[in-house]
């Protein structure tokens, strides 16, 4: 696998990468991609990255199993704006954005998620919210006659987040 850049005339499909991706929710949808490019025209990340981010090319890399082009530090995947236009446009219901998010799950599994994502997760695991409760928040709420933020039953949340027995997640 490490040598595929040198053997440019041979495409070697990394099936382990494809199998791992297929285990993610909607991770296997790229199989239906016929490379029409409908996802590219409306993609703001494509427009504003001078074409560096290209959902059609990402689907092609997935089909070829070129995982090491996508799964690594500073992956191009984080340029996605999550606007869902590609999902809207795709005639094959490939949902490129969902495949991209599944790839991000693979990055996160390897500890390669951006710091901001890790911070949001930590906040959620302590408060059940993405914006943590605080006396300042409750004071602002009181100004509008609103009660303090209700507590989230974290014991329930943590229980349902425990990995499945024998599963990967």
């Amino acid at each position, binding site marked *: 696998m490490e040598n595929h850049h040198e053997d440019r005339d041979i495409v070697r499909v990394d099936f382990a990468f494809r199998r791992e991706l297929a285990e993610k929710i909607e991770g296997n949808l790229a199989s239906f991609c016929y490379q029409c490019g409908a996802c590219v025209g409306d993609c703001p990340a494509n427009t504003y990255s001078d074409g560096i981010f290209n959902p059609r090319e990402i689907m092609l890399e997935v089909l070829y199993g070129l995982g090491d082009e996508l799964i690594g530090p500073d992956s191009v995947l984080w340029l996605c*704006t999550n606007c869902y236009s590609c999902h809207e446009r795709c005639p094959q219901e490939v949902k490129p954005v969902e495949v991209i998010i599944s790839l991000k799950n693979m990055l996160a599994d390897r500890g390669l998620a*951006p710091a901001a994502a890790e911070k949001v997760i930590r906040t959620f695991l302590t408060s*059940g919210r993405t914006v943590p409760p605080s006396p300042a928040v409750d004071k602002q709420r009181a100004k509008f006659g609103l009660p303090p933020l209700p507590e989230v039953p974290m014991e329930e949340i943590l229980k*349902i987040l425990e990995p499945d027995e024998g599963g990967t997640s």
Partner: protein
Amino acid sequence: MKKFAFFPGCLIPARHPAMEFAIRETLPKLGIEIVDLEGASCCPDPIYFKSKDKLDWLTVAARNLTLAEDKGLDLFTNCSGCTATLSESYHLLQDDGLRAQVNRRLERIGRKYRGTSRVRHIATVVRDEVGYDAIRDTVVRPLEGLKVAIHYGCHLLKPSRIMKVDNPDNPDVMENLVAALGATPVRHRNWYLCCGKACQTEDLPATMMRDLLTTVRDENADVLGMICPTCFGQFDHGQMKVGKRFGEDFGTPPIYYFQLLAFAQGVPYDDLGFERQRFKPEALKAYEGAGTPA
């Protein structure tokens, strides 16, 4: 009164309580009864949380949906991000295999997802359950002459097969909601563009925002109306950052639709928390004398 379970999410209750106040103020006047859900968590967010682990994301969303199922009610959200997560989860959980997988996790806390509560964005609740004419009937300060540029945002509309809100290529719900207040909706050239807040890098959304704010400014609108608190943050704090970065003054204050509705229904300007915005919708003040609260 039609009853709906209210899923306020994280951003509005914690960062923008004025928006929650406006919703609780306006909906009862439109004949909608709000039922609060105990024990709701973050939806969870469709960007960061979902990019970490989709199965965890779907499981937490399913638990939130069961809270509305317990009440036997459909649920509405006031945030396009929450709507994205919950609508998509509702859609994904129609798959028997995924539903069984998620329910095995929910079983640990004595819960079961059944798929009996539908997910509605607040914009569709007022459009479909109240109607534009009935909204107009509650207006005591018609906002005639107020130009409201429209920002739809992405997740209200797309993917339309799942969101089922409006035609993503030519929507009209926001224009009609604004027109019901007597104001003039304005569609700017980049109306379709994403606000960029959900992009997990910095440079790309800044350039995109500059283009978007430039076309908004070209319309000389009084305010930029929207329906999503994430977009709102991007057009308030974010507008300041982008303005500084490029040395430009865009100067169109953002406004969340339900605050505009509350104002049109007679809530005083000073009660709506606008002083906390970086760009304040001061054009509204001209209408304060036009009506007194009923």
